[in-house]
């Protein structure tokens, strides 16, 4: 049986002024997919994701999303820059719960429990009352993942989520994503360089370089004569055990 399509991207082009960041992009996301979106820096991954989220207007083509699709979003390296912003971990994660909600938006006891459970799952419950600026990059990344997860989304969109994590955290991170995908059937779009760590449960690789250069299974990607070096020569593969 064919699984439901939850996102359909049809011939999409996104421009910044006259510069075409991505061109003629078409692909479907089906329920339960784990899609790795890869490509060099500047190849248009973040642009495509922002268009999908409605943050950027598409200049051409259409993006269709299933009605009422609940999206959990982990942006690329944001909020990590301002160390002095006064917000506790609980307050940051609460955005993921309350921003979506109808008026009035106040935390109740259930919400607090959900926040704590999500932090628990990510092994950082003790950080609840800490100010986010005091945390390490890896801890902040997990807090932002908690913010994306806390509302129990149907699809997770993660833009380079492991860039600030060390190797063991990275493995743990991918295990969590895998579990979410297998147990709760959450669809995942994963922008990553670390396709090796993520490999065994990715069911599709989309390789982007302004246009889509490749869109097939992980195995097919590994056997591809021109693209497979991306897997084998990628520096992250050789950093096992090294803290980044």
């Amino acid at each position, binding site marked *: 049986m064919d699984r439901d399509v939850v996102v359909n991207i049809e011939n999409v082009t996104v421009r910044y002024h006259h510069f075409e960041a991505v061109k003629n992009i078409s692909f479907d996301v089906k329920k339960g997919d784990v899609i790795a979106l890869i490509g060099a820096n500047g190849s248009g991954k973040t642009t495509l994701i922002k268009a999908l989220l409605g943050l950027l207007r598409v200049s051409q083509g259409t993006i269709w999303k299933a009605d009422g699709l609940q*999206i959990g*979003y982990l*942006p690329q390296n944001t*909020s990590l820059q301002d160390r002095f912003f*006064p*917000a506790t971990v609980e*307050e940051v994660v609460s955005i993921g719960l*309350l*921003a979506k909600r109808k008026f009035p938006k106040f935390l109740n006891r259930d919400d607090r429990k959900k926040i704590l459970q999500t932090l628990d799952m990510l092994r950082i419950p003790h950080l609840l009352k800490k100010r986010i600026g005091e945390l390490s990059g890896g801890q902040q990344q997990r807090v932002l993942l908690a913010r994306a997860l806390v509302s129990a989304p149907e699809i997770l969109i993660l833009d380079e989520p492991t860039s600030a994590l060390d190797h063991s955290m990275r493995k743990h991170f991918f295990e969590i994503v895998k579990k979410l995908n297998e147990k709760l059937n959450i669809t995942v779009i994963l922008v990553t360089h670390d396709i090796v760590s993520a490999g065994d449960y990715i069911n599709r690789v989309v390789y982007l370089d302004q246009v889509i250069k490749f869109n097939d299974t992980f195995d097919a990607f590994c056997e591809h004569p021109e693209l497979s070096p991306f897997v084998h020569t990628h520096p992250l593969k050789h950093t096992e055990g090294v803290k980044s």
Partner: protein
Amino acid sequence: MSFIDPWLDVIDAIFRYQFLLRAIIVGLMVAISSSLIGSFLVLKKFSMIGHGLSHVAFAGIAIGLWLDQTPLLVTVPIVVLVSVFILKLNQSVKLHGDSAIGLTAAFAMALGTILASTSGGFNVDLYSYLFGSILAVSQLDLYISIGFSAIVVITVVLFYHDFYAMTYEEEFAKVSGVKTARLNTILAILTGLAVVIGIRVIGTILISALIIFPTVIATQFNRGFKGTMIIALVSSMVLVLVGLITSIRYDLPSGSNIVVVNGIVFFAIYLYNTIRKLSQN
């Protein structure tokens, strides 16, 4: 005479003379609304809009005096409209935030000065609007400030979480369904109101300080967002009170005095934190 007596006389006078009581109430309204709005503006790194609007308020007052109308009533729509205008300029790709504010401020100041000179120069009235004057607080000013700060407080409480989410990370808030465009417009309008409330007691020149200082003082305490806002609110009220009472006691310009009190407290706390950090290392 003891040290205390003159201060007791001041307190006594505040309750005996209507205009002093009015000034105190208006002062507290300024403290409340500008600190609440200031928390969002400062943490959004958009607090210079207060500075820009204070110049626009000056032009508004000059226009009001020139037209021989109640200056504050003329100023309200002008400041609110320009506030929204600056926001839109800021969002247009071709103009960055601080340049939008800078050119608006300079233009308004120039316009205000021209109007003032054609109507006989900087008279006493205009001067009192520039630096604030507690003697000049009228019954109308009192009603305007109470009404406007009620609007500010109610809006901020009702939409607290949306304002906070947008301040923390606008894109994420937008993705989550927060109507950020509308919310930014509301924030611009409230900023306009907060600036206008401050004109009588603080004066147009110094009002932006009351938008910035409370939040900057509060962030020194390392709390979360809500905690920081509450500290900003309380410290703003206390410092405005202290500033007003000392200005009555020593017959100093009220606006300047309030700003100086804020400045001293900020530097004291900053110094304390720095010394403590150094002694820990």
